[in-house]
């Protein structure tokens, strides 16, 4: 009997985030099913059951608890005629109506497991409320009839996944960036800090793209474009829309699609400057070309660094900037016991989809994490 790692009780893990829901078996390296948390729905009352735009796509589940949504359709790329909703997460779950269908889809349709046979572990952010927890337990026990259920903290799980009992977990998600000090497998709640900086970055990008070289770049999603012509750099695009689809498209779906385009742009070419904003350095960095679904292509130089800069460095010109990641880190470390600062600062775990932004570990490596009285000698040595 191999005792390392505990017993194998074939538990399932469900990790619900802003952009995606991940589900898999405990002990696996990667989740077995990753589905977007955004969904399409038909608003109640559903007198006429609107046929789906693409009948084969999507999984319909009637939500019975609240009549807000008549139907919920997962994989909302094609559900243009329905109102679309993001996962509706503002740092934690606000609306539980779509949760059961989402989980059911991930477990039963993707993983093909019977939830009644497996204990389930669900993750929660460290600032989750007791009501949310209760609701989640209710869903699990009453709707899925799971034999056992446990709620674990994402910060602790991230630290353990990196093989650390004590760590400073920097989690940059789609809607929230958070810094969680974990000591001996427990979250230090006093040192916890989070900020909606990713959302801010997205809105910043949106305004950036709406006025790039005095051009308002159209952010039509590819689903609504019938044809396009290749054009030269910075030339006005030639494209035709699928008018019949555009007419049917709801506003919320269009907003959602536009949001996707913005995120795509950020993930493709945005970058974090290594040492704060510096006009000369940024001017020397190579520019990158990006082609939008409309066929419009442009070269972005300094713009792609602006986005990353706002994530890590204070911009005095922008008063509405939420807490940057540096500030979160130094806040977390400052509230911790001085004894722990060295341990935490030398065990930094960087996680979350937002941390895949090019150059995120850069500021850490260059010692610019220093802020306030946290010595750079300890912070920013090892950030992986």
């Amino acid at each position, binding site marked *: 009997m191999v005792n390392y790692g*505990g017993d194998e009780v*074939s538990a399932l893990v469900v990790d619900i985030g802003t952009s995606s829901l991940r589900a898999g078996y405990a002990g696996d390296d990667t989740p077995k099913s990753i589905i977007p948390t955004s969904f399409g729905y038909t608003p109640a009352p559903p007198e006429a059951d609107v046929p789906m735009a693409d009948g084969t796509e999507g999984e319909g589940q009637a939500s019975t608890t609240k009549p807000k949504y008549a139907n919920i359709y997962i994989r909302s790329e094609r559900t243009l005629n329905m109102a679309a909703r993001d996962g509706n997460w503002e740092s934690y779950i606000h609306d539980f109506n779509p949760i059961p269908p989402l989980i059911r889809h991930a477990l039963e349709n993707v993983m093909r497991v019977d939830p009644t046979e497996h204990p389930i572990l669900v993750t929660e952010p460290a600032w989750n409320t007791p009501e949310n927890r209760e609701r989640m337990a209710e869903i699990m026990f009453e709707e899925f009839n799971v034999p*056992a259920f446990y709620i674990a903290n994402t910060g602790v799980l991230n630290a353990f996944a990196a093989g650390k009992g004590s760590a400073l977990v920097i989690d940059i998600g789609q809607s929230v960036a958070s810094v969680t000090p974990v000591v001996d497998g427990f979250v230090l*709640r006093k040192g916890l800090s989070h900020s909606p900086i990713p959302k801010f970055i997205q809105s910043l990008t949106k305004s950036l793209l709406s006025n790039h070289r005095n051009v308002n770049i159209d952010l039509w999603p590819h689903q609504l474009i019938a044809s396009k012509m290749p054009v030269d750099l910075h030339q006005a695009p030639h494209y035709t829309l699928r008018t019949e689809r555009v007419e049917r498209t709801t506003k919320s779906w269009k907003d959602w699609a536009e949001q996707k385009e913005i995120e795509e742009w950020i993930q493709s070419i945005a970058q974090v400057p290594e040492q704060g904003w510096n006009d000369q350095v940024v001017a020397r960095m190579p520019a990158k070309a990006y082609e939008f679904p409309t066929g419009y292509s442009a070269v972005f130089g300094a713009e792609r660094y602006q986005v990353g800069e706002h994530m890590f460095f204070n911009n005095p010109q922008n008063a509405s900037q939420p807490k940057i990641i540096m500030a979160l880190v130094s806040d977390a470390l400052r509230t911790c016991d001085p*004894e*722990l600062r060295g341990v935490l600062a030398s065990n930094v775990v960087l996680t979350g989809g937002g941390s895949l932004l090019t150059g995120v570990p850069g500021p850490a490596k260059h010692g610019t994490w220093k802020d306030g009285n946290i010595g750079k000698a300890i912070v920013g040595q090892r950030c992986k």
Partner: protein
Amino acid sequence: MAVSAADVRSALSLPDSSAAGPSNPRKQPSMTRKPEGISRELYSLIGPSQPSLAAQAKPRLKQKPKFATGASAATKWSLRSFNNSARKDGLQLKHWAKASEDPETEYPFAKYNTQNPTYTYSQDEYNRFLDTANRSATPKDGKIEIEKYWTKELTDKLFKLYQEYDGRWHVIWDRADFPPDAGFDLEDLKHRYYSVCRKLIRNRPWPGDEASRVTLINSLQFDLEREQMRKRYLVSLESRTSEQLAEEEALYLEVRRLEQTERRFKHEREELMRTLAGMDSGLPHLVEDNGAPLGILPESRGLNKKRKPTGMDTEPPTPSGAGSSPSVKRPQSTKSAAYDAQHCIIRTELSSNTPATKAAHQPAYARSSKIPYLKNNAMQPKILQCFAEMGLSPSRLVMPTKENVHQLDGLLEAVTAMLDTKKHLDKVEYDIQVAKKQLAMRNGEGVEEGEDTVKNEDAMDVDQGTETEGNEGRGASVVSIRSARSRKKTHRSMSISSVDTTATSVSTRKRQKRG
């Protein structure tokens, strides 16, 4: 099956081979026919003695797989529900287990659910021992003022948290939302917890022996002031500004640079001195200590020297002469000598005319093997005779201590010198006798008595020498000397006058030695 092998052979007009049994019917044709794969020319060269490598292995069909049966069969596993005895809620989960395992065995992971021993107290105990209000009435060495006021509720809460988080103090501190006006610190929590535990152990009847109680109490010691100081120090370390850090770094580099320059200078100078003058530069050795950068400064050598003679725990400079310059080593302080005497350390002094640069290395040796030996061959029998007269053996010392060897050395020297003198004297006396004879021949008279006196005096002189040396001697060899002395004592007074008159030079030399 009426057709026999012989029939087949005859039918195929093959040579009959009665020797070829049914065991090798296939080999037979290969002996005569050229096998495939070998060229005709080669076959004609090597003939039938072809390498056996070409021996044909007939292709076989794929073998039937062996399915394990019985003991080597694949283990059977079964999905079973189990009870975790560490759980109190009786939850049943399922896991895969070997079918051979007894389902009633204890869950192997239950043993990892361990808990630290926790202390509880009753209301009565709290009132009697743990109430800080009581204790502040009897303040002890001013320590009471740093202790904060604890109510029973807060103490209860602290103990509950300690149990819940299993003594992880940082988590306890994080979860404990004590009223802010109490002004508790993490150290205060620790202090309170450990002091309560100590008091409980001290005031309760103890089942074991006193030593185990003391060790337990010691394991629960907590020095509040020291911990607070340590934390302040940590904070000050962390709150260094980047300028201070840079300065520190620069200073460290500077020290390293200085040290390196110093070392290079010394090396160069030493080499120069060695080449030109054949001696050591006499520069002090640099202390190789990377951990304490300040220790490499030359001034610190003086500090080291000062510290040296403070006590027995500090080591005197290493006695090995190799490498270190004698000019530095020689002026050993008197305290160092005292240290040597106390610890019976004997230093072999290098003679001053040894070239300093030649590493005057002295290998270790047993003192007994280096007992001075008689070198003068002409004198040897006489010296031996002289020693025999004293009842001594010059080659064997019962106890070759340093002093005794030294004594023997001196004795040998004295005997040699005496014999020398005697030889000289003999010669002079012979001359005198010759001269007297010549005189007598001239005067016509004999000189019998004078000769007698001289001989007597010779024997006495030997005695005296032995005696003086023997007086200082110690150890086993002295015994024999003493006996010799007592034997010869009688001669002394008798012949003293003649010594003074005839052998003045010898006796003065002896006196000097004695002094």
